[in-house]
């Protein structure tokens, strides 16, 4: 096994670990707030996949930038839409 395969194996192991963790977290009684740690863990797993399985760690800065662009843009959309919903109750 070469170095790269070992690295991939380590990443897979970490992913399994995080999967177990996120599943466990869902059972912790946090009211309805489990989704926040769950999503944070999903973002972590995504980061691992992007960096290693998709080789971004070894790619040019342009690829780094592109790989986060979609997520940044999506968060703009989410942020401004959610802003409307949480401030929806009108002044009485």
């Amino acid at each position, binding site marked *: 096994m070469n170095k790269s395969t070992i690295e991939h194996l380590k990443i897979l192991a970490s992913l399994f670990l995080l999967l177990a963790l996120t599943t466990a977290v869902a059972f912790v009684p946090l009211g*309805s707030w489990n*989704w926040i740690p769950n999503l944070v863990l999903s973002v972590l797993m995504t980061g691992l996949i992007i960096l290693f399985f998709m080789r971004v760690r070894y790619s040019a800065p342009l690829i780094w930038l592109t790989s986060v662009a979609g997520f940044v843009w*999506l968060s703009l959309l*989410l942020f401004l839409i959610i802003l409307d919903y949480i401030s929806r109750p009108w002044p009485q």
Partner: protein
Amino acid sequence: MADNVSTSPEVLNFPFEEPAHQRETALFGMWVFLVTEVLFFGGMFTAYLVYRYSHLQAFLEAGRHQEWYLGALNTAVLMTSGFTMALAVQAARRGDRTWLLRLFTMTWLLGAAFLAIEGYEYHTKFVEHLVPGNGFAFTGSDPAAAQLFFVLYFTMTGMHMFHMFIGLMLILFFGLWTAGSTRPMHKPNCFEVLGLYWAFVDIVWLFLYPLFYLVNPS
């Protein structure tokens, strides 16, 4: 087995004159495409978050009907397939046809297993009358909002499965092409692009899993 590990000159498509330039461009192009995919799924994630915010109670009740262990199993299957795919891409880069085909087979089988598990889940939903539409039956505080949860569930996992299906077809196509050809592999970029696509499909699932299976697990 010397011919399996030969690095061969790539075929250059117009307007490229150097393999490295062609590779960089192809990969960058794929990454830009994945950006559009993020926003494509993003529209549905937005809908999910908005409705979860508006109908929290109903979403929690609907989440009860999801089998978290099936979701977890599927996540594990998909992660492993992502791993084998990443190795397959490495093999392709080395020009190692034997390992490429082995890893492609594994990836394909794992992908098919994922679809099978998902299909089983759809079947149970059908049996429990949780498929939105006329047959939908749900006892809870707000059946309409609960139906919304399942509409989103079917739409988003359905769209994800559609992407999986395309991926499987591509693996099959490239696999047969590699297996059938005795020429050295002259288009390694195809495999890398496919690898990126497959990894992206994994990533989508990493978000679907907590949002649909870990809402209110029992």
